[in-house]
């Protein structure tokens, strides 16, 4: 465990360069996606095994708190995918490792270029949803009750 503390502390303290930050971001994004994915898979499986729970969770996930998380996962997937591709390409083309600085720069640029418009789209959808509910006298922040979806019970 001491090595965990050391790594975490020094990964921040050590004055590494783009490579170290790419690695940190890749690792953290990978973990974030995994966390989301596991929930997502088990949850989606409910569409078959337990529709009531699934529909309830759909409603729950419309909560802006989850919405923000979703944008985060989007960021994670995009970065992780681009950076993973970068690593893969360089791994199979070793001589390109000479240009790793450039390659991380390209990855980050690409990531922001793609992510920003997507984030805007997602955010506006979320805001639209909330204002719609608000005009109907409801709140998008309300946690839906499980019983609301009794018609889906098997």
């Amino acid at each position, binding site marked *: 465990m001491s090595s965990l503390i050391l790594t975490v502390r020094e990964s921040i303290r050590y004055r590494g360069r783009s490579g170290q930050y790419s690695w940190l971001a890749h690792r953290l994004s990978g973990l974030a996606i995994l966390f989301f*994915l596991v929930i997502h898979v088990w949850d989606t499986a409910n569409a078959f095994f337990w529709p009531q729970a699934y529909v309830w969770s759909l409603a729950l996930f419309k909560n802006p708190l989850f919405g923000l998380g979703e944008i985060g996962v*989007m960021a994670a997937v995009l970065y992780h995918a681009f950076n993973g591709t970068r690593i893969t390409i360089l791994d199979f083309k070793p001589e390109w490792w000479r240009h790793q600085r450039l390659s991380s720069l390209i990855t980050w640029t690409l990531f922001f270029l793609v992510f920003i418009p997507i984030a805007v789209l997602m955010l506006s959808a979320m805001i639209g949803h909330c204002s719609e509910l608000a005009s109907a006298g409801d709140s998008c922040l309300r946690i839906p009750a499980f019983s609301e979806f009794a018609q889906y019970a098997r």
Partner: protein
Amino acid sequence: MAAITEKTSDRMTVRRVQIEGNRERYAWLFMRLSGVAMLVLAVGHMVIQHVLNSSTNLTLQFVAVQWSSWGWKAYDIFLLWMAIPHGIRGLFNILSDYVHNPGLKRTIGILLTLFVVATVIWATIAISLFDSAMIP
């Protein structure tokens, strides 16, 4: 002094090597290959499900429409088979950086493998047996 004018081949010598089979090596390859596959599958999935169709208007009926086609079912199953093992293997890589006790590491490995198998089977059943006609 004729020797100096002779020239050896300009071609690089390439030789074959024999390396013992090793799980690490295949895992490494799998991470990259599944990664490339997911570049299309996962990013595509994210864009389609979470951008083009916002989850704010996602409904069971929408899922039913999608899963009425075997094409989409296959897409999702394939993504599932890539993503879960990839992600869990990634988690295992990270854990094995810090878990140095071989016994504990093995146990974690076994548990994670069981988890992958359970998840993949469970979700595959769900997707493939999902019958859109049953949705009201």
